[in-house]
């Protein structure tokens, strides 16, 4: 049996993942032509590399089709209900940092906190006849966060891209999105609510609790963890 390791199939996330394993003496590399999604592992036997879209790695881990996977900690929490029952975090990888934040128009001088947002949502609903709209693709994380903080009278509207533009386009009153520098938010006349971000995300190596772990797979994982200097 081979242990299947899922890694992002393209872009900086893939390169940084290769570098991270490389620094521990495990060489990951794409093989074949530029366009062929095939890859190989050198430096440790018994591992098969699977190239996947970062967004699909949580699902593959939860289904047990891969043993290990590299993806954003935000994606695991967003896409998997009761994620701790399905995967465990083996190691934060120190790149791909981004914060999930809630942002409102900068002209809302009266709004700095979730507390303010809640009060504004109540007044907005009374004035406009519908619940204040927050555009996001992080439905689960935002809904949980707002429930814990007792925010009511809002609705989430789905936005899969260009989310920062929805307020100006009047399809939402506020937004929730991932940001690393806040540059795009500022350019679109938005400000981040004060306090901790909803989630501080980074690329993370996850282990599936649902995969079929044979004795050989466990031995391979142990060797891998020793090389990486982490607890299995």
């Amino acid at each position, binding site marked *: 049996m081979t242990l299947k390791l899922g890694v992002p199939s393209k872009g900086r996330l893939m390169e940084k993942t290769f570098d991270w394993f490389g620094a521990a003496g495990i060489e990951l590399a794409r093989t074949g032509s530029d366009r062929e999604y095939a890859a190989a592992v050198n430096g440790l036997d018994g591992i098969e590399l699977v190239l996947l879209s970062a967004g699909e790695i949580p699902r593959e881990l939860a289904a047990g089709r891969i043993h290990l996977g590299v993806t954003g900690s935000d994606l695991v929490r967003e896409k998997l209900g009761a994620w701790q029952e399905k995967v465990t975090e083996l190691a934060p990888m120190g790149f791909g940092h981004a914060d999930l934040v809630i942002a409102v128009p900068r*002209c809302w001088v*009266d709004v700095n906190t979730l507390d303010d947002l809640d009060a504004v949502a109540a007044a907005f609903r009374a004035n406009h006849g519908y619940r204040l709209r927050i555009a996001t693709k992080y439905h689960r994380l935002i809904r949980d966060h707002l429930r814990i*903080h007792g925010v009511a009278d809002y609705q*989430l509207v789905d936005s899969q891209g260009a989310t920062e533009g929805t307020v100006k386009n009047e399809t939402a*009153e506020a937004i929730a999105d991932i940001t690393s520098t806040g540059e795009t938010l500022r350019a679109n006349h938005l400000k981040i609510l004060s306090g901790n971000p909803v989630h501080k995300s980074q690329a993370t190596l996850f282990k599936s609790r649902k995969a079929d772990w044979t004795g050989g797979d466990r031995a391979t994982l142990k060797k891998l963890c020793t090389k990486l200097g982490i607890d299995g």
Partner: protein
Amino acid sequence: MTDKARVRTEAARLLGFFEAHGASVVEADILQPAETLLDLYGEDIRARAFVTQDPVHGEAMLRPDFTVPVVQMHMADGAEPARYAYMGEVFRKQEEATHRASEHFQVGYEVFDRTAPLEADAEVFALIKEVLEPLNLRAATGDMGLLLAAVRGLKTTERRKAALLRHIWRPRRFRALLDRFAGRAALPKGRDALLAQDDPLDTSAPHIGLRSTSEIADRVEALREDAAAAPISAQEVELLDDLLALRETTGHVLEHLRDIAVDMPAIASAVDRLETRAEALAKRGVDIATLDFEGSYGRTSMEYYDGFVFGFYAESRPDLPPVATGGRYDALTRVLGNKNGERRDIPAVGGVIRPELILTLTEEVTP
């Protein structure tokens, strides 16, 4: 018989019980329009109900409860007074408690009656108690009407009372607001700085979005009013805390509530109603001397209970959810009846039983 067939048979037995006591049996669609439920319960319901898509009618939900469709059906064409019974599955996502079933049977009984609401409260409770009698369950009761009356009677601004009433079903949020209005907790970050400015609305930021400049100005004005208002007195907060902490038998609680009402006259008529209801319960054979009353009962359920609330629990099995729950939900009928400028409401009280829990417990008693 399979488990599900046995549950259905038990549900039919319960339905027959309510029918024999004068209820009309009604049905409700499994697919419910999502918009109505979202407007009522807020976005949280998405985490608890199964959402699906109809190509023509848009978003739909697998019914998370019968209350909403039964109220809608009654408001559309029901004669008054009315007594309904129903049975069927309800569907709830169990994201955090994955061991709990995501669909289960409910049998319910609902009373729509304007003439004698306290009598109706007692009727629903006593009927459910009667049908569950062999299981020897513990009943817990409460009355959201007391807390609502206490908040409405606070000596503070209307805005503060409205904010507290809006979060009365979210205890943590309610507590945070109360602490702030009582001057025991700091203002949210940035509030002082905002109000210290001569013209807070003077900003370099361009105006974007549907929330208008005048809405922002109104809120700044409201914040100024709030900053100038006197804190809610420590004595009033203490009385509210007393009310919320009550855990006594119904017999004893009345005496205690009379004491609180001396300092908080706003709850006096709610206490009168509690007493009248207790008498109505006693007439139906409920032992008031041992019936538990909890001041906070009913605050964390997602239903819109705003009066009498109750639940029946198996003390030998604390791992099980309550076998039956119910209460008065006049506010819900007000929200559902307030469509297209029409304002209608109907006092309503009801409860639901989970037949599969009865089977679970019965099998424990007689193996």
